[in-house]
């Protein structure tokens, strides 16, 4: 075991897979010598050179499209979309091409492509550099959607994503890159569709995505002092979704909170809450709660930014209300 930063875990996953399989290569903006905006590819250009760590022109549609074409013809590209907000520009290739070509071709196309991107607020980056748009890709059949919250998951899931034979959208979080965690020295993979029970508890289930996992833990810690026992579950992949683990928890606690930074309306939280209700409404003592991003663009000034994305305190309040 080593203590690694999330960004190092990402980098190690990329490095190991590039060493293992020469078809794996990276393309994106400033991922080479510059090492990526959040330094998650640092050192890879030095090891693998221009050919396999490819800086591109500022062309997200071409980055994604070139990755799709390369994936269809024998390569295993990892394409980076620098901020998830910019996925707007690449979305035709991701949602209309990568997601659908296998199906449209009657199963012929194999498209082992990973779209790495990064989301999240908290750095005063304002409305176009802080969105968490996982709901968009979750909506589109054919895409797998991964959101690791800790270095261990980041590494194991990214390796799985690269070995997956279909398109995967791999969503990191800009405020997690500098967070440390335990990562085994030996190789491991984490299968998609297996939630992680981050903390066991009996009173309330919090299903948390990405950085909200950390805030949920903070909330659980605080609530424990009041004698409220919170179970925190990180689905890790929202497509495929490990509904079973979530349902088992809800059957135990009878109370559900879903939390993510993405906008509340039509967010992944609505999907998870609905699936839980569809299957186990009778098990719920109270209606499910969403503690998610408010339905406004993300403002610049920190005081407002902190208000529009959920904080641990918001979770604490929501839990208390559910328990009252």
């Amino acid at each position, binding site marked *: 075991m080593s203590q690694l930063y999330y960004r190092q875990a990402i980098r190690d996953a990329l490095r190991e897979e590039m060493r293992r399989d020469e078809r794996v290569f990276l393309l994106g903006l400033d991922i080479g010598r510059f090492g990526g905006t959040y330094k998650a590819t640092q050192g890879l250009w030095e090891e693998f050179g221009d050919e396999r760590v*490819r800086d591109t*022109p500022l062309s997200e549609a071409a980055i994604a*499209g070139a990755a799709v*074409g390369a994936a269809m*013809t024998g390569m295993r590209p990892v394409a980076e979309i620098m901020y998830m907000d910019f996925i707007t520009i690449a979305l*035709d*290739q991701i949602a209309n091409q990568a997601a659908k070509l296998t199906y*449209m071709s009657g*199963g012929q196309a194999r498209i082992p492509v990973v779209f790495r991107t990064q989301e999240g607020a908290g750095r005063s980056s304002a409305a176009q550099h802080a969105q968490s748009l996982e709901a968009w890709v979750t909506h589109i059949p054919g895409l797998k959607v991964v959101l690791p919250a800790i270095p261990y998951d980041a590494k194991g899931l990214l390796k799985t994503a690269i070995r997956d034979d279909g398109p995967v959208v791999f969503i990191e979080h800009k405020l997690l890159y500098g967070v440390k965690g335990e990562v085994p020295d030996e190789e491991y993979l984490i299968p998609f569709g297996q939630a992680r029970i981050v903390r066991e508890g009996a009173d309330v289930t919090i299903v948390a995505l990405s950085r909200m996992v950390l805030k949920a833990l903070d909330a659980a810690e605080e609530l424990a002092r009041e004698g409220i026992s919170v179970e925190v579950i990180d689905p890790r992949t929202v497509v495929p979704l490990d509904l079973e683990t979530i349902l088992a928890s809800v059957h135990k606690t009878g109370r559900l909170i879903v939390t993510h930074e993405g906008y509340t309306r039509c967010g992944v939280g609505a999907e998870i809450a609905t699936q839980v209700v569809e299957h186990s409404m009778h098990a719920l003592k109270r209606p499910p709660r969403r503690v998610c991003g408010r339905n406004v663009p993300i403002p610049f000034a920190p005081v407002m930014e902190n208000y529009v994305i959920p904080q641990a305190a918001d979770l604490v309040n929501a839990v208390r209300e559910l328990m009252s």
Partner: protein
Amino acid sequence: MSVQAPASGAIPTALDPALLLRIHLTMVRIRQFEQRAIELFMAGELPGFLHSCLGQEAVPAGVCAALREDDYITSTHRGHGHVIAKGLSFDRMMAELYGRTTGYCKGKGGSMHIADFSQGVLGANGIVGAGIPIATGAALSAQMRRSGQVVVAFFGDGATSQGAFHEAANLAAVWNLPVVYVCENNLYAVSTPVSRQMRVNSVAQRAAAYGFPGVTVDGNDPLAVYEAARAAVERARSGGGPTLLECRTYRWMGHYIGDPATYRPAEEVAWWKERDPLALFERKLIETDICSQEEIQRVHEQVRAELEAAIEFARQSPAPAPEDALTDLPQ
């Protein structure tokens, strides 16, 4: 943009007669496939939409004659000609148009999405311009794998107004990729004439923005297309990078079957129909003694027989079950 007359002139003697006959056969196959598909569509046998490439046969025939079997193409909504020229067979194409399980895409794709990866057909595409970045990525893959493959992206004049065209062409230039961008400039994007799509006189001119050659040829002359494509493909294969090849041609039918195409002057349509690429080429073949009228007749008959068999195959093929819709997602 002024409508230009196809270059006339004799067949270059250096060309292998077998090649010429191959190109001819391809054009006949495309012509007949399209004619029958229209009939079947009008008879209500085919679901969905049909975008016919009647009148444009010389472009795919000329271009694909310059390709190796393992080269790749991407195609468009108007893609039957491209994939026939790349070697796909009538029976599975027809079956796809009929939405049958024996179709190239098991009835999931239809006319607009025919693909055969085993023949290098990476798929027709319903999003105008979207095949261009994909072709560019396939060229990157060929370059990285050092496979010697070349990729052709087929697209229309309208597609060059898409951001995807621009981004991909620029990327290919920077990375010097083995790709040939073949624009079938048929003077219209649906109802919109090129003069209202762009202010330059040729699509080829757009290559200037990327730093690779742009060439305009008579798209109704399969040999002019072939020669230009051969040069571009050789360039690409030998590491010389991309080329933009504009082929001026014309679609005889409306944008889709059912579109009366009243936006086009009757004289313009007539002018182009007189320059029927197949008839002109056949006249040349006969004049140059490559083959006789009878031999040409025989080709038509053979193709007809093959086509009727394919239609029969399609009609006899099983329709998918509703639940088949749930298969063929990635993995």
